[in-house]
């Protein structure tokens, strides 16, 4: 390359500190509850104190006359408004869909079901007036456990769903084939496992602000949202029947989501309806108890596993039968999480010839269950990774070795697991396993464990290995768009890249952040690819006015789908810039070289047109090539050809207090492969937080319902979100196996930590107790549960 063209200093791959941070670390962020509009009024929700009842009467007279009250409304007032839709109706969900209404009409089916809304001048007054509403109930029997709900004679939640069954879904080989393979297996193990219910607990609860402007008939909704365009579409077209062009949805700064802010909730259409009815902007911001009672929960599977294997630990058959508790109604994408995102991933990293998965979705008198960080893949990984350890236990083969013997090999990719998932794009599982074992000091740990067991120490040592593969970039129309499988629509993403006259750049994206640093990562990509200074690039998002439609941020898809849309738009801008540069340099377009923001004619690097020169020319537009439009901008709508499949191995080492059952993680190693990394600092941060949530499931968290449907863990006083002192230091490393599904070779990193970590901790705790005869233990590993296992195991 000629001397005048300096080598580009690439930003991709650099741990650049985040451009999002200054406002957030100074208190200048703008979260939902920070929004203040002139004339704002405040909504409070009267919620059901009982899990299942007919509402026999509601008297709002007293509330209406309380200080500051502007309006009180019940389900009757909203009878004409459609219920919320279930957008992802997996196979088998047809005539038994039951979704929530904005306010209950006639019947409540979970504690926390919204019954009435009060709007008042202040949020204090709105809450006061809730005590002025009198509701009479005729209580009905409740059922909270999916295993009970499907039994004959169980309380029935919905007339159109006999036996409380939402759907019955299967994948893989037929059951008879797999039964036969199991019957013929040298070693056969079966185990029932629970994947307990979790509460996502974004630190910012959910809320909505609605504004209706009569003069223009326009609605604006501010919402704690991971998917504002989807919320706009659903609220406008499916719930309120508003013309779609008349509604604008804005996600302000969003304080974490972890899945729980993907969905359409009752308050989104409700605040718009109220604003129109009352002529005032209306804010609703749930408190933490409301968040725990009624914002979606995650997981809650009961699964029977049957595994067949050879004596040397090769898995020959796997049969999985799951009851998935979906709560009182179907949330927006609930059936998809429990089926295709779960069942089609149970093969994990392994070549398993005979797999059959059977899933029944079940209604119960509990909060709706939908995607929570990992969404189906944590449940699948837990099943297969516990299964690997059960095979290890039954065959005497080391757990790490069981994994190694069953891994899909590098030459097998793209690899079709045979259970209906798109083929795994690329992978090389052994190096990550080896590296994780090496960092953990696996051989030495095994020796220490043997020594401790020999001298009867009071601190039991356990070592857990978990190898995972997960599916990222939840989007391809050829999978997620298939009817009976997905949404009936591809979850494509969009991006508009616009170079202004001054050479500064705006990028609008349908992907949006709620903590992941999209603005920084996307700007790094654009800076490198377009060759403009990083600080000249603005990333715009989260407002449906001004950004092209996109399906939002979840499923570890922002970079691989949204980022690819940006990447492709940049390439289109560069193509136009090259055409214009050719015109400016009086050369043929095919002779133009474009690198690092500069264009020149091949062989003549002294005459350079910068992207800024070209942008100016494109906008003043008096000397453009014949037929070229002014401006320098490109839009891409991107439907990826496949998903991406990051993988890795995590090793967890625990000490169990023989006297109290307390579990402490003394070492945690994660070796992950997410393909190419744009910002390693941000990717590490995603893994830290992901692993923390995965550990939290294993050791601390679990939503507990009483038999009558009362949520016992309804506050942070009871539901144990881990504190700094309850989590270990994470030692991370990476291997890099690129993908050619997208041009960046990146795979996605938002959920992998959660998916890989829970089974590593579970396997470590069971391993610590294995010499006492414990083969499996359900999570969370609270001290009492572990203590009891030691008592029983010892007996």
């Amino acid at each position, binding site marked *: 390359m000629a001397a005048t063209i300096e080598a580009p200093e690439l930003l991709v791959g650099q741990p650049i500190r985040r451009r999002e941070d200054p406002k957030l670390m100074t208190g200048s962020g703008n979260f939902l509850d920070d929004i203040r509009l002139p004339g704002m009024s405040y909504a409070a929700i009267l919620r059901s104190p009982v899990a299942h009842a007919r509402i026999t009467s509601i008297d709002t007279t007293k509330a209406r006359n309380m200080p500051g009250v502007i309006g009180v409304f019940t389900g009757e007032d909203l009878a004409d408004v459609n219920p919320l839709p279930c957008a992802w109706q997996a196979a088998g969900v047809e005539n038994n869909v039951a979704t929530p209404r904005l306010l209950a009409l006639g019947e409540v089916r979970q504690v926390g079901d919204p019954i009435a809304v009060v709007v008042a001048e202040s*949020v*204090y007054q709105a*809450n*006061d007036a809730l*005590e002025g509403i009198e509701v009479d109930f005729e209580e009905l029997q409740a059922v909270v456990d999916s295993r009970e709900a499907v039994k004959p004679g169980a309380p029935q939640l919905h007339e159109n769903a006999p036996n409380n069954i939402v759907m019955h879904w299967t994948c893989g080989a037929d059951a008879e084939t797999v039964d036969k393979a199991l019957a013929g297996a040298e070693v056969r193990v079966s185990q029932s496992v629970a994947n307990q219910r979790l509460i996502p607990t974004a630190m910012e609860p959910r809320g909505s602000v609605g504004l209706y402007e009569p003069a223009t008939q326009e609605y604006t909704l501010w919402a704690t949202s991971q998917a504002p365009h989807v919320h706009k579409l659903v609220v406008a077209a499916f719930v309120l029947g508003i013309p779609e062009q008349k509604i604008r949805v804005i996600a302000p700064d969003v304080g974490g989501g972890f899945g729980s802010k993907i969905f359409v909730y009752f308050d989104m259409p409700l605040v718009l309806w109220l604003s129109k009815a009352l002529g005032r902007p209306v804010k609703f911001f749930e*408190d933490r*108890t409301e968040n725990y009672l009624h914002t979606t929960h995650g997981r809650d599977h009961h699964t029977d596993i049957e595994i067949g294997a050879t004596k040397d630990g090769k898995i020959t058959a796997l049969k999985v039968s799951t009851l998935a508790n979906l709560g009182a109604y179907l949330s927006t994408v609930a059936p998809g999480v429990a089926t295709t995102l779960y069942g089609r991933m149970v093969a994990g990293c392994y070549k398993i010839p005979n797999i059959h998965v059977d899933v029944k979705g079940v209604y119960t008198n509990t909060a709706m269950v939908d995607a929570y960080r990992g969404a189906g893949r944590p449940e699948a990984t837990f099943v297969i990774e516990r299964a690997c350890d059960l095979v290890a236990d039954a065959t005497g083969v080391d757990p790490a070795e069981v994994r190694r013997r069953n891994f899909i090999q590098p030459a097998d990719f793209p690899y079709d697991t045979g259970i209906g998932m798109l083929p795994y794009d690329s992978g090389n599982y052994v190096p990550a396993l080896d590296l994780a074992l090496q960092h953990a000091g696996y051989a030495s740990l095994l020796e220490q464990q043997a020594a401790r067991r020999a001298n009867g120490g009071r601190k039991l040592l356990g070592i857990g290995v978990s190898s995972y593969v997960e599916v990222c970039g939840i989007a391809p129309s050829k999978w997620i768009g298939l009817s009976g499988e997905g949404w009936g629509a591809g979850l494509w993403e969009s991006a508009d890249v616009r170079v202004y006259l001054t050479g500064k750049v705006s990028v609008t994206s349908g992907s949006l952040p709620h903590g992941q640093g999209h603005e920084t990562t996307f700007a790094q990509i654009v800076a490198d690819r377009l060759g403009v200074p990083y600080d000249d690039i603005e990333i715009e998002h989260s407002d449906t006015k001004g950004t092209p439609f996109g399906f939002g941020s979840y499923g570890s898809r922002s970079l691989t789908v949204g980022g690819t849309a940006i990447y492709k738009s940049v390439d289109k801008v560069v193509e136009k810039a090259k055409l214009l540069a050719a015109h400016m340099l009086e050369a043929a377009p095919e002779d133009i070289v474009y690198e690092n923001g500069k264009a020149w004619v091949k062989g003549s690097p002294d005459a350079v047109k910068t992207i800024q020169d070209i942008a100016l020319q494109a906008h003043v537009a008096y000397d453009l090539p014949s037929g070229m439009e002014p401006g320098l901008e490109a839009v891409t709508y991107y439907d990826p050809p496949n998903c991406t499949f990051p993988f890795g191995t995590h090793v967890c080492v625990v000490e169990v207090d023989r*006297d*109290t059952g307390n579990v402490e993680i003394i070492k945690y190693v994660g070796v992950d492969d997410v393909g190419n990394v744009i910002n390693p600092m941000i990717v590490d941060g995603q893994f830290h937080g992901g692993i923390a949530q995965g550990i939290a499931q294993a050791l*601390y968290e679990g939503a*507990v319902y009483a038999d009558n449907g009362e949520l*016992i*863990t309804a*506050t*942070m*006083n*009871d*539901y*144990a*979100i*881990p*504190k700094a002192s*309850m989590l270990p230091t994470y030692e991370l490393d990476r291997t890099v196996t690129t993908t050619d599904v997208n041009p960046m070779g990146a795979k996605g990193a938002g959920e992998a930590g959660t998916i890989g970590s829970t089974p590593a901790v579970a396997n470590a705790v069971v391993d610590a107790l294995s010499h006492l005869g414990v083969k499996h233990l359900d999570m969370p590993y*609270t*001290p*009492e549960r572990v*203590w*009891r296992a030691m008592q029983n195991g010892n007996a």
Partner: protein
Amino acid sequence: MFPNQFEYQRPDSVQAAAGLLAADPDAKLLAGGHSLIPAMKLRLASPSSLVDLGGIEGLVGIDAAGTIAIGAMTTYAMLRDSRELSRVLPMVTDAADNVGDPAVQARGTLGGALAHSDPAADFTAIFLALNGSVDVTGTNGTRTIGADDLFVDLFTTALQPDEIITSVSFPAPDSGTGMAYEKFRHPASGYAVVGVAAVVTTGSDGNVASARIAITGAPSKATRASESEQLLQGKKLNDESIAAAAAAAANGLDINGDHFASEEYRRHLVGVLTGRALTRAAAGM
């Protein structure tokens, strides 16, 4: 959530505060407010008026020369950071550092903790084990209530409705005294699932001259493990005697259970933690 409405009064003397309490049976005292205000926000408590003790002088301070006297409005943070207290009652400073979190420690008060008698509080057990006493003032004057008489039941003390704790006293420990508080912390609330405070004094013969062991978290009020104390009396404090005392610690206790820790498990923990507290106390003599 937000509290219901109430009257707010900020008297400048204890007598005036007692008068306000006497005048309104639904009034509540506000000290640090870290139990009361969360309960009011959840509308589990809706007092008609709050009598804020924050405007009364003379209720804050630590005097550790001789008998240890601590003002009722002294916060956990002050206990935690007191060097003189850490020399004479190290268990108190350690425990204060493990109540809630630093923000709770900055507002929560010793007098408030004792008057509230939360079954999972730390300082009820510490107060019992250290054989403390409280000075109280009511409309009928002042009196002193000893450790063994203060806690009556769940959230119930021997205080009359108009009585206010003004100071908390602990006898200066004799030489040869060791003390430790062992807490099994609830992972969410930070309260004691079980807490055991042990204070043991050995005489010149090396035998236990006095032992006070108090349990919190498990029973409905902080309670002494009398049988364990008696087992230790006159014995050498060693692995064997500690094991015997630990094994007896839960005897006779009425123990609560919940979804996180059953009665049986808490009973077990009482023994384990009693053993640990005594072992640490022995090491600190």
